[in-house]
């Protein structure tokens, strides 16, 4: 595994292997000294064209817990914002000796381009590219789901589990990566969204699609994943006549959460719009694992960094 760009490139074995390593990382994080020397001497660059404090900090924490050095390039106040091209930025990073690049961009395909254009020779981790994929998010969601729904079995897939994903699927890289990963590991997925927010080609996806949240929840899913919805886009983009109408039809209210099976958990990639796509009380309830997802994120990102960097690069090129 040379890069971590999209779930579409992962096999079931590779995904389970990274998740198993994440479990191991989680274990080490409850020791008195949480830092591991595994990546000492390596330099990980966070190349963030889009603002995202939480994802960037998560990757930074993951890299530092493995004793790697971290350099942050963010869009504001840098040559990036002055219009330096991705190509020139990549060439600069290569010259500066980055060992891995974590990239977050508003452009679908940016991570793929970095990995294959020939400007930079190092492993690339996709921290979110446009509306395309956010593979580490899907991994941490899966990690969290597995801990709750298949406890005690660090090698388990998600066979037999039903997950409902709700929100703006059209613009969501989290939705795309999750549909791919959850189904890869054997879960059943139902996407719930208003018709205008379901991509035209999504009927070809290996999941069910519903326009009715209550109907989907009546099936008693094991987990409900709420996607972050951009409020401004709903009304400004002409998708909904009012925010209230969106909340009424697609928000996870207290009543809807109460009707879920007892064991069911609620996830959200954050940041949340409390009261819009998810009621505050639901976000704070015992069945919400939203805070735990954040911790899972560090373990999963430690595992991804480990699999890409703590390995013989020649093996990776042989795979190519």
């Amino acid at each position, binding site marked *: 595994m040379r890069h971590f760009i999209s779930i579409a490139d992962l096999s079931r074995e590779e995904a389970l292997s990274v998740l198993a390593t994440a479990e191991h990382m989680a274990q080490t994080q409850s*020791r008195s000294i949480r830092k591991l020397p595994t990546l000492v001497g390596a330099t990980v660059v966070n190349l963030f064209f889009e603002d995202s404090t939480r994802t960037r900090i998560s990757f930074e924490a993951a890299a530092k817990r493995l004793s790697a050095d971290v350099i942050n390039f963010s869009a504001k106040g840098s040559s990036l914002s002055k219009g330096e091209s991705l190509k020139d930025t990549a060439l600069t990073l290569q010259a500066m000796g980055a060992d891995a690049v974590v990239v977050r961009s508003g452009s679908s395909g940016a991570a793929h381009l970095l990995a294959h254009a020939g400007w930079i020779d190092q492993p690339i981790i996709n921290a979110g590219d446009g509306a395309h994929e956010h593979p580490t998010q899907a991994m941490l969601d899966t990690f969290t789901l597995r801990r709750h729904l298949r406890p005690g079995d660090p090698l388990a897939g998600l066979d037999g589990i039903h997950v409902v994903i709700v929100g703006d699927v059209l613009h969501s890289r989290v939705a795309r990566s999750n549909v791919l990963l959850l189904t890869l590991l054997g879960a059943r997925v139902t996407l719930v969204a208003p018709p205008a927010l379901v991509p035209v080609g999504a009927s070809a996806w290996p999941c069910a699609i519903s326009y009715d949240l209550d109907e989907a929840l009546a099936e008693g899913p094991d987990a409900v994943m709420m996607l972050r919805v951009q409020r401004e886009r709903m009304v400004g983009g002409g998708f909904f006549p009012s925010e209230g109408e969106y909340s009424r039809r697609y928000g996870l209210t207290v009543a809807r959460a109460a009707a879920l099976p007892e064991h069911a958990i609620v996830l959200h990639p954050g940041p949340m719009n409390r009261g819009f796509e998810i009621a505050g009380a639901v976000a704070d309830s015992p069945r919400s694992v939203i805070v735990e997802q954040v911790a899972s994120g560090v373990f999963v990102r430690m595992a991804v960094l480990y*699999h890409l960097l703590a390995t013989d690069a020649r093996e990776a090129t042989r795979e190519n």
Partner: protein
Amino acid sequence: MTERHAVPDSSAPESDATAGADSSRVLGPDEIRRALTRIAHEILESGHGAEDLVLLGIPHRGVPLARRLAEQIARAEGRTDTDDLSELYGALDITMYRDDLRSNPTRAPSPTRIPRSGIDGRTVVLVDDVLYSGRTIRAALDALGAIGRPAAVRLAVLVDRGHRELPIRADHVGKNLPTSRSERVHVQLSETDGVDAVDIVRPSAGEEARA
């Protein structure tokens, strides 16, 4: 894979790779049993009783060895409670502390299990099947340091094959086995491989040329 001065890959269970090469058996099931019995008694004699003792096996084959030693020690002390056993031994994965990660394919880490009572102030006995360069044990000492502060750390190995690259020595050795660098020591245990045996495998002509 040519034998380098890196830690021998004791973390990956091997298939029986003796076919076609020249191997000789140096320890059979009886000899292994006797060696472990002796080591168990040595541990008890050198320690101050089993209450302060924790045996930590290094995956993979160090773990069943640690368990066997724990059983012997528990029996010798007249303890029959299975709870006592889980407090007496565990596993310590050292993958994240290795110094040779980047020259090898990705290694999957194994679980670490430390007894609930922890290691602080206790005597930790690291248990492994083969002691060679000493780098595995160095990594184990680093891993221990992140978990707690034992009063003392000792080392018990089934086989010491020489060629140390670090100032590390075993306190308890099942058998000293002088070997040459081109030879391989192949350990099998019933828990992992179905049989108890230690073989020295001499390379075939082709392998010798590569070594």
